[in-house]
Every structure is written in C-alpha cells, then in structure tokens.
C-alpha cells in the first residue's frame, strides 16, 4: 500500500499532495496572484514557490497524518512548464528524497492531469480535452502512449483568456479565467471573432490579436461592453475546442470525453461539451477546481501509478525540462 508524496509548481500554483492507493490524503496549494493588468514572470513565481513550499510540505504531512517514514516515493513535476518555478520545486523534492532515502519519480505534468481525471471520475478510456493556461491538447490513449490527436499550434486557450483579461485589467484573483467566466454570464451581445480551427488543431494567437484590437475600439465607442467581449471570446474559443474534441472522438469511436486542466473548471465549457456528447450518445466527465487546477495530488497519483509499474528517476537524470511532450512517456501501467 504505497503512499506517494507529489510536488507541483510548473506555473503560478504550487502544491504538495499525498496519495495512497487512489485515495487523496492531502492536497494543500497556494497560488501566486499578480495585480490586474499583469501576468506572472518566472523569477517572481519561483521566489513565491520557494517561500511557501516547505510550509505546504509540512501541511500535507500533517493533514495526511503521516511522517517521512510512511512515504514510499517522492514524485515531482519534471515538466513541461516554466523553468525557474520547476527548478525550485524539483530541488525540494530531490532534497527530501535524499534526506529520507526514498526513490524519486519525475512526472509529466499533462499525464498528472489525465491520471487524476481518470481516478476522480472513473472514466475508463476517454478522449481527453486538456486545457489550461499553458497547454491545449486533445489526447487519447493507444498502445502504451497518450497520443496527441490535436493541439494548439501557437498559444494555449487559457493563455489567450489570461492575456485578454490583462487588456481589460480584470482581476487575477482567484484566476483571470474565473473572472472572465463570471463577466461572460452578464454578456448580451455576440461580437464576431475569427474562428480558427485548423483540421485537428486550433490556433488562438490571431483571435487574441483581433480581440485586443477590437476591445480598444468598441469599448471607446460604447458599441459593446467588457461583458459582451468576455462572452464572445468564450463562445468562440470553446466552440473550437468542442469541434476538435468531437473530431478526435469520431476518429476513435470514443463514447467518453474527459476535460482536465484549469480551463476545465469553466462551467460554460462543460455545458457546451455536454451538448456535443449528448448528441453523440457519449458521456462527459469533468472534475472540480480541487483537481482541474494544478495540484500536488495529481502528481502524487501519477507517481503512484508509475511507482507501481516500476518506474524510477535516478537523481542525476532528474533535471527539469520546459518542453516535455505527453506522448514521450511510456505508459506501462495501462494495457
């Protein structure tokens, strides 16, 4: 009955989780929030994580009711993500692994999301829509790999939303995406934006440029409100995501869809995906903000799966990497 400790800090959330045999025993997390109109920079984010991570580790062990002796493996995010924050978190993982003489496991962040999504929802073999500030991919499992069926060819959908929030100086607390979602509910007018699906893939940088430009003009003339723009952006980008997910589901003959990643918290996205799934007779799975948003337990659980399957990361190979494709990992814990 191994218990695994997981460290996550690839973007502005830092979390430490404890998982044993599919049970989340602890999952404390902190978010680095910057003032409206600004984003988070790597050095400042890493400094934030360094300041709080040891407290989080202490909290996680206390909440789980465990000591270092009860932990069997230390998992951490090897990548992908922002360099400086990844390094800061990995350093703590390596140090405790060596202090406590426990094996270390480098986990792919995207796979952490997928495995936690599967655990929490019970979905067996879903088509996964992974959408966050840093990633946008449609993934399906096939023969020991999480294969990427479609993805963004430039920026992530969450990145598009976050950067748009900066233009309108929308608050980043608790997250810009959450605040855009609330404003969108009050939107009344649909502003036409470019719709950029490219086959199995999507593109968001053009939409961002367009809406940044439109925002200046239309808000000055009073042609639309910020709420209308939030509503229009969500409707457009979410429709694109539903389209590429549906395309992948049609290819795979899949009857299950799973949304993971921070943008997956968005209820409008879930609603639109649900409509598509119902039309296909498929089932939609989604998690709540505890597990959608980056967290330590997802790394711990993916680590648990990998540990059981015999994976280990020697210290000298434990360097972080900003680019780490989802399909680079051999998924030996599934058939």
């Amino acid at each position, binding site marked *: 009955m191994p218990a695994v400790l997981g460290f996550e800090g690839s973007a502005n959330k830092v979390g430490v989780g404890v998982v044993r045999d599919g049970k989340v025993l602890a999952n404390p997390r902190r978010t680095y929030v910057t003032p409206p109109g600004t984003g988070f920079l790597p050095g400042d984010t890493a400094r934030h994580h360094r300041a709080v991570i040891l407290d989080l580790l202490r909290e996680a062990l206390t909440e789980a009711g465990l000591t270092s002796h009860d932990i069997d493996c230390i998992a951490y995010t090897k990548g992908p993500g922002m360099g400086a924050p990844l390094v*800061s978190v990995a350093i703590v993982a390596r140090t405790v692994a060596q202090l406590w003489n426990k094996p270390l496991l480098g986990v792919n962040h995207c796979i952490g999301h997928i495995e936690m999504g599967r655990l929490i929802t019970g979905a067996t073999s879903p088509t996964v829509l992974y959408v966050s500030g840093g990633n946008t991919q449609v993934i399906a499992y096939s023969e020991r790999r999480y294969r990427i069926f479609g993805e963004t060819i430039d920026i992530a959908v969450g990145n598009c939303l976050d950067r748009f929030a900066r233009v309108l100086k929308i608050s980043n607390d608790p997250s810009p995406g959450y605040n855009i979602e609330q404003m969108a509910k009050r939107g009344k007018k649909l502003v036409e934006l470019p719709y950029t699906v490219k086959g199995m893939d999507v593109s968001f940088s053009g939409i961002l440029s367009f809406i940044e430009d439109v925002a200046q003009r239309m808000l000055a003339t009073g042609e639309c409100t910020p709420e209308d723009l939030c509503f229009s952006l969500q409707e457009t980008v979410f429709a694109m995501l539903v389209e590429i997910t549906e395309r992948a589901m049609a290819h795979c003959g899949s009857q299950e869809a799973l949304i993971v990643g921070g943008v997956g918290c968005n209820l409008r996205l879930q609603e639109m995906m649900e409509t598509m799934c119902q039309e296909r007779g498929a089932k939609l799975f989604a998690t709540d903000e505890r597990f959608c948003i980056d967290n330590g337990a997802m790394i711990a659980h993916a680590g648990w799966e990998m540990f059981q399957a015999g994976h280990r990361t020697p210290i000298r190979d434990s360097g972080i990497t900003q680019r780490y494709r989802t399909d680079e990992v051999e998924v030996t814990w599934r058939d």
Partner: protein
Amino acid sequence: MQAPNRGTSNAAAGRTGCLRPRSCTCGTDIVVAAARGSYGTVPVSGTGASGNRRSLIRPHMFALRVPFPSPLEAEIAHGSLSPDVEPHQGVIEKELTVRGNVLAIKWTAEDARLLRISIINCLEHLSLVLRTMQHFGPPISR
C-alpha cells in the same frame, strides 16, 4: 507581488568573507572566494593560442566553498543542485563537486551580468536546500 518570506536570500551585497545564514542550526558557513578576472572585453588573439584560449573566452571566474556538517549532507546538496541544466550553456559554465564535507561550486563566464544572475540564483537554491535540511533533516543514515 508577494514579498519573499524570511529565510530566503541571505547574501550580503558587496562583502567578501563569511556569510552566516540566520537561525541556522546546522552551523553551515558559506565562504566566498574572491571573484577573479577582468571586467570589460578581453581581446582574443587571432592566432588561436592553445590551452589559454578557453580561459580568454571565459575570463570571469567565481568560486564558492560550502562546508556541511557531514559528507552525506554535502552529497545531498550536490544531488539537489546539479541535475538541472544551466541556461546560456555556451556563455557560462557552472561546475559542482564534492570533496569530503565540502560542496565546491565553480563558474567560468564570458559575460559578467549572466555570471551575477547565475550566482544569485544558485545562492537562492542553496538557501532552499539548507532550509529543507533544517526542517526535514537530519538525513536517514544509510
């Protein structure tokens, strides 16, 4: 932007000699060896001189010696700090070695600004390792 908590960077700017971390129970000292090398451009001879060419290209050097209470702790610090690849590999190189209970870190760099940034980051990370050892150590005996 949140201010970092107490206990992160203890570097005293502009001093050589000993830096003593606050509330450090393991008694670790950081001894800063004087920075050597010239500032400003160093002309490189066009004839491609042999062994000296490398040190001409990287004229700035900096070295730290960090004593730990035991060889095991020095090894642990080495294990935590060495795996990540240093950015700007062509311009700056950082080497970590362990001798007894001392972790030695040596830099050679073409660019003084990048060297300064690398040293500051390394000190932040070293501080993080020390704090982790203080709160979650001592190491389990092998």
